[in-house]
């Protein structure tokens, strides 16, 4: 790949890969969250997700992200005390 593309093209390709990689990461997270929150929130299979199931799914994602931020902040605190 090094010789095949001009410098400008290489720059463009690496930007492209960076974007696609970020997109793929977000998609992986969506699969993980859906997996996790489906187990927590969806009960009997009906003709539509009901209002409370939808609310639960949405809360589940938000609280998971809060938890993740909390852990990072807490570790940061611990590190600063050392």
């Amino acid at each position, binding site marked *: 790949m090094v010789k095949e593309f001009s410098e400008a093209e290489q720059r463009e390709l690496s930007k492209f890969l960076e974007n696609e990689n970020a997109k793929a990461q*977000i998609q992986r997270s969506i699969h993980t969250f859906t997996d996790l929150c489906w187990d927590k929130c969806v009960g009997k299979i009906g003709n539509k997700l009901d209002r409370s199931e939808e609310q639960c799914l949405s809360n589940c994602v938000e609280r998971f992200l809060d938890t993740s931020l909390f852990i990072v902040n807490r570790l940061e605190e611990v590190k600063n005390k050392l």
Partner: protein
Amino acid sequence: MSDYSSYGSGGDSDKKQQVMDQVRGDLALANAQELINKMNEKCFTKCVPKPGYRLESGEKTCLSKCMDRYMEAWNVVSRTYVNRLQEETRQHGNALGGGFIEKVVGGVRTNPWYILIRFLDETISNLCVCSLRA
């Protein structure tokens, strides 16, 4: 993908476009496979609690509904997550450079059916666990 529309004439540009198409195709396929695998696992658990000699028609009805519900759940989750990402970006500034999240997020929030449908005609059989694990 207006950012990458500057290709066109030369052979090198075609080569570049090929690489991009290949990458996009591979990622889209991986995404579809992941969706199908999860759906398979979740709906099997919900709808076939005691596997018998064959799938009963009631189980099949449940599986169809469950697939639709899984897609809905996927949509709710992706909407919530993407909104949160955008919110965090607005609040804390974007460490990754302006517009990055917007650009990335644009291609993510698609209806999950579209993730699958582009593969339905050619490779759907390759997506089945039966052939993946063979």
